[in-house]
């Protein structure tokens, strides 16, 4: 019979209190725990994906205090006192965000694996630059890779959402 999991007395844990998608969240983490594992495995929010695991692709993008981070290479304790948004928090009480609507309307995704990261990164972009040029958009988003390579539609979707959000 397997023994119940016990934590060694000498294992360091760090109490982390933060805002997750607008709600207070309290959780104890070990120093080596990654933000992506905490969010996916312990908090059950599986929208953020692990893909490259080396900060190149953006599939694991989360927003911390509104800015994109690679959750695959961020230690979980770093979100102490901060505000974290995952893709599950983008829609407002079931009402889709204009970016989500635009991605649907303009075909901004195919398999959808990169989409949570694309949406959160582009939200960060539009929050700080509501009227980006296409060049600014591409510069900001160049670390978000789409393996289905539907970049044209992704750019169109974000530009359309930007326009709608400015209106």
């Amino acid at each position, binding site marked *: 019979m397997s023994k119940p999991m016990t934590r060694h007395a000498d*294992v*360091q844990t*760090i109490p982390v209190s933060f805002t997750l998608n607008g709600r207070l969240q309290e959780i104890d983490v*070990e*120093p*080596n*725990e*990654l933000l992506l594992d905490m969010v996916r495995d312990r908090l059950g929010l599986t929208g953020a994906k692990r893909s490259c*695991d*080396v*900060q*190149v692709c*953006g599939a694991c*993008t989360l927003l911390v205090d509104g*800015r*994109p*981070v*690679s959750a695959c*290479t*961020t*230690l979980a*304790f770093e979100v102490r006192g901060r505000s974290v948004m995952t893709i599950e928090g983008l829609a407002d009480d079931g009402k889709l965000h204009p970016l989500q609507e635009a991605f649907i309307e303009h075909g901004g995704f195919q398999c959808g694996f990169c989409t949570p990261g694309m949406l959160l*990164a582009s939200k*960060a972009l539009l929050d700080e630059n509501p009227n980006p040029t296409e060049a600014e958009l591409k*510069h*900001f*988003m*160049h*670390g*978000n890779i789409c393996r289905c390579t539907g970049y044209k539609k992704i750019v169109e979707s974000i530009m359309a959402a930007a326009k709608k959000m400015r209106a």
Partner: protein
Amino acid sequence: MLKRFRLEEPESAAEVSELLGRFGDSAKIYAGGTELLLAMKEGLVQYERLINVKKLTGLSALAADNGAIKIGALCTHHQLETSALLQEKLPTLVKLEQNVANVRVRQAGSIGGNLCFAEPHADPGTLLIALGATMVAEKSSGKREIAAANFFVDAYETSLQADELLTEIRVPTPGANSRSAYLKFGYLERPSVGVAVALTLNSGTVNDVKIAVGCAGPAPKRVAEAEALLNGKSTAEAVSLLPQAGAIAGRAADAISDLHGAQDYKEHIVGVLLKRAFNSMVG
């Protein structure tokens, strides 16, 4: 997966140095973690302790200070690319920073971590050498300054001692006649070749020429021989000497053949970038 480690969170440079001295090779400074955590996840390195330096709040300062721009080692790339002070005083550094990595790495990664990791395919060190910057290193027993040109020893190796940390970078404030440029080229995630040039331009004559090359070889370095060739020349004369200066800089780059390109190819690119950088300043 990351192996288990303990986290230390000191609040002063002296405490950091003391921890480094006490735990030696089993402990490592952790800033943004963008390099360190990757190496640890790959299993290339392993530590029993990470020393989080982000509670040293003074290390995030960015200010004009006594004829220099003082950049705290913990300043993130994002902080540097959006700084109004840097935009006014060191626009070349701002442009460089805007093109480091991607938005997420710039958000977490610090300039100190970039310099101390001394990964050969990095941008800031090359420009800082050409700008005549100084690195401030601290340990329990005191502070010292290291010229940027002497900071980089080899790939992944700096002249920091085992119990020293980098606290700030000091860049002399460029004068009205100063010009600088940094150009890089690459087609992988990180740059293959980087070239920085700084000079002063006085009624058609170039002076104080500083040239540095990076990424192509194990560590960024100054190319005094190419500087001497251009120094004191009229801009027209200097422009005509650029092919020669580029060839000298290419050889000096210690270029190696790897995934980023063959040795002779990188040497050639050094010359091309040097020419473009120079022309962008005197044109």
